[in-house]
């Protein structure tokens, strides 16, 4: 069966997600798994941009913030349906990404990093300053997400929602990478001039993947806001952007399941390190340095090469 061969990791992931509730002892663990899933989807979108297309973004949390605050502000202040607010947030994030992308993608390397960094910081500042709508630095509550009278609340319901979204995202990303669009993206990373000569409109593709990752970042921002029931400007700040980039790099650039592993590890690690009392940041930093020195390509690509022989994207 080709679907088994193509998506064997995805099937294992589905099985794990199905069985996980049997061993999760309480809501605290559900909460960690849900955060892992949210991060994994965010990191996956970012990895398409950074790992596959080779374009850095240091302001991605800005798009997460746009989604989160759209879901907070529009239903609370304007009485919008949360789903409509979520769609509006994703549309706004995509539109901003599309407008700034053209000038931004004329830049390369450090300049691109600086431009996206600026974009993220501006978003965070706007959120902090527009206190009348956003609650300023204190943040604001978010209404519960209800679908056709069925309210999604509590860890167990969110778990199943995110399990489905997670599986769908990884399936879609795998498909994308293995399509003409995805090959064009990877080709422009490998050699921009060669891909142009083959007919790839390089700027259009960079813009498209930037918009796509902004779209998903905004959606996951909305989901985070509804799940937690409260948003603060921290969701859009620079440190969140860096955290997401770190997950991409540690898990493995241009590795679909590296995104999952990176998100799981870096979400779990701070919790696991809490026993170090005050030194957890130091230990955290040391682990990251260790990973980068001994596995510069990231966990999944390094391990896949060591144990699997054939290195490949996404498997």
């Amino acid at each position: 069966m080709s679907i088994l061969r193509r998506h064997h990791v995805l099937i294992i992931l589905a099985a794990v997600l199905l069985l996980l509730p049997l061993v999760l002892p309480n809501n605290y663990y559900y909460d960690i798994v849900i955060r892992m899933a949210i991060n994994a989807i965010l990191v996956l979108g970012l990895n398409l941009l950074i790992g596959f297309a080779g374009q850095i973004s240091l302001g991605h949390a800005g798009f997460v913030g746009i989604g989160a605050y759209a879901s907070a502000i529009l239903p609370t202040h304007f009485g919008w349906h949360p789903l409509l607010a979520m769609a509006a947030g994703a549309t706004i994030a995509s539109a901003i990404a599309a407008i700034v992308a053209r000038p931004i993608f004329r830049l390369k390397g450090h300049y691109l990093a600086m431009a996206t960094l600026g974009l993220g910081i501006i978003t965070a500042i706007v959120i902090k300053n527009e206190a009348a709508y956003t609650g300023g630095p204190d943040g604001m509550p978010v209404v519960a997400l209800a679908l056709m009278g069925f309210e999604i609340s509590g860890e167990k319901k969110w778990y199943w929602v995110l399990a489905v979204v997670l599986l769908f995202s990884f399936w879609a990303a795998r498909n994308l990478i293995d399509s003409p669009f995805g090959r064009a993206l990877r080709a422009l990373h490998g050699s921009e001039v060669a891909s142009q000569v083959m007919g790839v409109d390089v700027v259009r593709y960079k813009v498209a993947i930037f918009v796509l990752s902004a779209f998903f970042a905004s959606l996951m921002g909305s989901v985070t806001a509804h799940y937690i029931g409260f948003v603060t400007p921290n969701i859009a700040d620079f440190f969140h952007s860096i955290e997401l980039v770190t997950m991409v790099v540690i898990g493995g650039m241009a590795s679909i399941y590296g995104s999952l592993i990176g998100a799981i590890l870096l979400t779990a690690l701070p919790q696991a390190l809490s026993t170090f009392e005050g030194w957890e940041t130091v230990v955290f930093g040391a682990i990251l340095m260790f990973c980068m020195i001994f596995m510069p390509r990231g966990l999944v690509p390094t391990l896949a090469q060591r144990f699997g022989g054939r290195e490949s994207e996404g498997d």
Partner: protein
Amino acid sequence: MALLEVDNLSIAFGGVTAVQHVSFAVERGLVYSVIGPNGAGKTTLFNLITGVYTPNEGEIRLAGESIAGMAPHELALKGMARTFQNLQICMNMTALENVMVGAHLQLDRNLVKAMLRFPGIARRDRELKDTARELMAFVGLESYWNLGASSMPYGALKRLEIARALAAKPRILFLDEPAAGLNARETAEIDELVRKVADNDVTVVLVEHDMKMVMNISDRILVLDYGKKLTEGTAREVRENPDVIAAYLGSNV
């Protein structure tokens, strides 16, 4: 009407005129070579025609249509393909995927359909894999198809570039020093391959330093020196031209 017509083409970089008033025409189905000493402007001429540079002056027509100043990805749509003197292989992909990228313009590039893997996309991708494998066999790389491009030897990568260019089903193929850095046996293989390509009704424009290969396979040869056209003709005419001999060996006038 010639397939490719270049008329009075010039470009200057700062004070250096790299290509100066060059005109020539390439008939369909020929192997047309551009030769000249180092720095004669051969690669610059290639870059002008394939859209990497925009000419300061002059006209380029492909099948009668003006193409000067078009971007490389627009020229691909017109049936132009090329390889590079210093390899431009996507090292982050497998050999087969590199060839598949060559067929980019023949495929449905829709993002949403790709993510949801519409049946048409999946089927077309399987067909493309077969075509790409055939092309790899055509250039003699069948044993490499599943390998990452980064683990292939230099000589194989040279041929992989040709396979990738052919995947675009070009009308005209520009080869920039396909035999550079290859040994005599590998050069002979490239020689044979270029002939095979031309026999498949793909017009070939070639820049090459290996004189034996150029004299062997070219239907016509353009000689450049200091950015200017020195002469043009068949291998025999060029070989016997005193200006060409002077340019290559130096003259004692």
